[in-house]
């Protein structure tokens, strides 16, 4: 998509570069890219900042009922769930509050509304049946996907739940922070180091 096209439809579109150059308050999550080649990784990991986004208060969450939100970009839909069982990455008093992308990392089928509360499974995907275990980091139960369902990293101040990062590449993207717009209310935080790699377009 061209910049002109983006301008016309996405008035607050941000490219990674813009995100990187945005505010420098307190450091947020640090994401290290482990897959760089030796030549690149010898130059050091690439730290990038994710926006911090308030999703919902802990209090109103109902077990098994999802809260939809977009993160880290406006075009990337996720669901917040209270599983009613401890989960990897789970927060809250029962370690059971998690959030995941609802785009199947196989071919982008929508998993919205496909959470099965009795097993904490997400799926099957309407496209090709991929199904994921939300209590165990989104590992596939069985799937054609070649990565886990991306899990949104959460934090809480005891009252509200915030999204602060994401574990895994969101379907369709080459970079979770590129080619989209930031959601309203997202606070860009982090002292960031511009990439020395060559992976940015």
């Amino acid at each position, binding site marked *: 998509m061209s910049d002109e096209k983006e301008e016309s439809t996405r008035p607050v579109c941000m490219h990674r570069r813009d995100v990187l150059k945005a505010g420098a308050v307190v450091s947020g999550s640090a994401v290290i890219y482990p897959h760089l*080649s030796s030549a690149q990784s010898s130059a050091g990991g690439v730290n990038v900042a994710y926006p911090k986004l308030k999703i919902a208060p802990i209090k109103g969450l109902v077990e098994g009922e999802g809260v939809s939100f977009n993160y880290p970009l406006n075009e990337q839909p996720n669901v917040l769930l209270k599983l009613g069982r401890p989960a990897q990455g789970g927060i809250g008093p029962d370690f059971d509050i998690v959030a995941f992308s609802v*785009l199947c990392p196989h071919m982008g089928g929508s998993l919205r509304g496909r959470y099965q509360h009795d097993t904490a499974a997400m799926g099957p995907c309407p496209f090709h049946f991929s199904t994921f275990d939300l*209590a165990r980091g989104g590992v596939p139960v*069985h799937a054609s996907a070649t*990565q886990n369902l991306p899990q949104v990293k959460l934090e809480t101040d005891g009252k509200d739940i915030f999204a602060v990062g994401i574990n895994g590449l969101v379907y369709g993207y080459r970079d*979770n922070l590129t080619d*989209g717009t930031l959601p309203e209310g997202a606070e860009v935080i982090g002292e960031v180091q511009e990439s020395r790699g*060559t992976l940015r377009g």
Partner: protein
Amino acid sequence: MTKDISRRDLIMAARSPSIDYAVYEESSNQVPIPPANAEVHTSACDYCIVGCGYKAYTWPVDEAGGSNADDNAFHRDFPVVAGRGQWVSPNMHNIVKRDGKLHHVVVIADGETAVNREGNHSVRGGKLAQKLYNPNKPTADRLQTPMLRVNDSMLPISWDDATTIVAELSRYAIDKNGPNAFGMRYYSYQYWENTYALSKLIYNDIGTAIGAEHDKPTGTNDAVGLDDSGVDGFSTSYADFKEADVIFMSGFDPYENHTILFTEWIAPGGAKIIFVNPRKSPTAVHAERNDGLHLQVQPNTDTVLNNAIQRYILEQGWEDAEWISRMTASSEEILMEKPGKHWRRRTFGQDFEAHKAWLLSDDQYTLENAEKTTWVPKEKIIRAAEMMAKPRGKTRPKTTVMLEKGNYWSFNYPASASLSSLGLLVGAGSRPGQNMSRAGGHQRGGMKLKGYPLSKSWVESKHGKEGEPAPMPVNFDQYAMSGKLGVCYILGTTWLDSMNAAQAIRLKLGELTRKHPIQADSLVVAEYIDTLKKRIDAGGMFLVQQDIYPNTLTDFADIILPAATWGEADFTRAQGERRLRMYSRISDAPGEAKPDWWTIAQIGKKMGYEGWDFEEANDIFEKASEKSKGGHYDFSKVVEVARSQGKKAHEFLREMSTTGIQLPARIVNGELTGTLRLHDETFPDDEKDTAPKIVYQFKTASGKAIFMKGDWNLVKDTFEKFRPKGDEMWVSNGRINHIWQSMFDGTRQPFVKQRYPSNFLMINPADAERLKIESGDLVAVENDKVLDQLGNEARGVLSLVAYVTDEVGVGVTYTYAFYPGQSADNVVPAVTDPITGVYNYKIGKGRIRRMGETPLKKVEGTMSFIPRTVG
């Protein structure tokens, strides 16, 4: 001393408490995409028979593609839209060397191919990029240089020394004890150039009768009963499955390991599925949710089920009488088959009337008796017969019948013969929507100069027609274990852990090799050879391993020959609808690894055989086309056309990209043309002069299909003897969708290892409760009497992680067949089929016992225990 508190510590302290993630490294949040000028290499998947088309993009590490369609090699804007492919997940990217220089590589499903349209891919093929060698990744342990065991150390040696040692010891053993002193186990599938070379060496040049393909103890075919009926195992086109009303799947689980055949061709076609499998796998769930049927058969009783369905169809008069009278052989036509070579057809072949009379006279196949033997309720047997054969007004349902290893890896002959006869009964010949086919395992990568020499075997079946020979191939494992094999050459296949009585083979092999009293202590070639000659003379063995990774065999090997594989050299082969494609070189092979054809050629030359002057893979490909003429993989016209255009055949095929051409290749009106299906009664008359006869006839002497008698009596006593008794349970085994084969790649892929960090034992909740077993527990399987290949009985044991799930029924457990180091075959006796000599891999059993817990039981574990029936 005050400790410095870093900013990172502060960040961590501010984070909310949570249960940590199981995967230590955080997943990738970005991936490089190829720039518009990236090099593109056509290929297809390395793994299952479906053979999806893939393209690899390589570009220098200091360049990058961008989000705009003009700035990347896919010519797509990013983010890409759902359902269209060409999204690159982090597992589709790697860093490799190409021509000695670091490159990015992305391997993605090709949306332009005829197989996996729109870029659909399986979990296995989707990760092909991870297969390519990268010393910073778990592929670092690739075999890279020839190595020799001296003083019990594996030491690097030169290729020249290595090929001299193998050639001279082979020559010595053959000259002294005859060709059968040399034996080879080899893959049947890993590319035409390689299988042509190895078949030339062992069957043409040496002439041994001691040969076996990767998944068998012998040199026989797979679904022998199907072959005997005259139906080629791969006679269909995938588009045919979309035309079917009903698909009967016997021991074939398409979601599990033919994923794209299922998600791209079978499920969207909407055919109702009759799924015959002891396990309620995701395909069974799909079948039941879509008006299909799951016949949860007791392991090994498919023969009775197939015959019971046939009998009920015959009782109702629902057989496809018109088609049968036109297309199946009479008793006179069956006797046109050659004695000896086709002894099974002459013994078990029968015309329709005889077949009908036999089934109606044998009460083992009544609904009531079949229910008792197979555990399938008679109502479901009736329903299956109705779905497959009951006329709907003036038309019949279009029924396709398929089988795979769940069928023919039980009692090979009666199971596959009863299945093929069921197919013929419902008119599943070869026409759109009405086919009979194997589903397949590996791709069709066997292009042999010469096949297994049955005429040289001394083994006879006792079930042949009186007064006629009934030759069977020699059991490789039995022969090797008996100490008669001087040189044992294992090429590209996991021998140990994949054959029945796996622990007995392992123990015996140790005695013959690494634990043999005669061991080498010199790297001087002549001295080494002298020592090993003495071992051979003393009844020991010289063990050659040619492979890409070390595996359980490496513990015993005397010499290692490193191989180059998929993506590292140019190769060709066909997939499950006979589609021939080019598998292009993408990256450099590690170290000194060489394509197998090259290694075999060096050894062939040094042994003094003629015709080994191949300089490149294309030379073998073009030579092999001569042998292919008239057969199902006839590609001679591809070579002819390439030559007429002044091109090498490999280059010409490369231009045909991921779609390639369906064989046999023909010239129609001056154009190179593929062939949709074999035995095709809709094949145009005016093209018959362009095609081998099998294109429009069945593969029999008369050209008509033959009803084969799949008789339960052949194996009933064996079944009774080996079935579980008392507190034993069935321990069945097979595939699962994340893992390919012996997990040689999956072991080196963290994404696979997190899902299945251990082999598992699926056990029904009712059995688990009785045995006080929970998911994540460590359990033992013990079978006190595992019959081995030499007729001895010994205990076989296995330990695994329990997976409590309704995927298996009461009394039946299920494991992955080939998990490295935890082989299901440890508890499977060496029971062979009395007609074909193929192992029964499904006849495992044992007592199950809880041993304790594994760390996987905790929520921090990576292995999901959600029953796979949820999806």
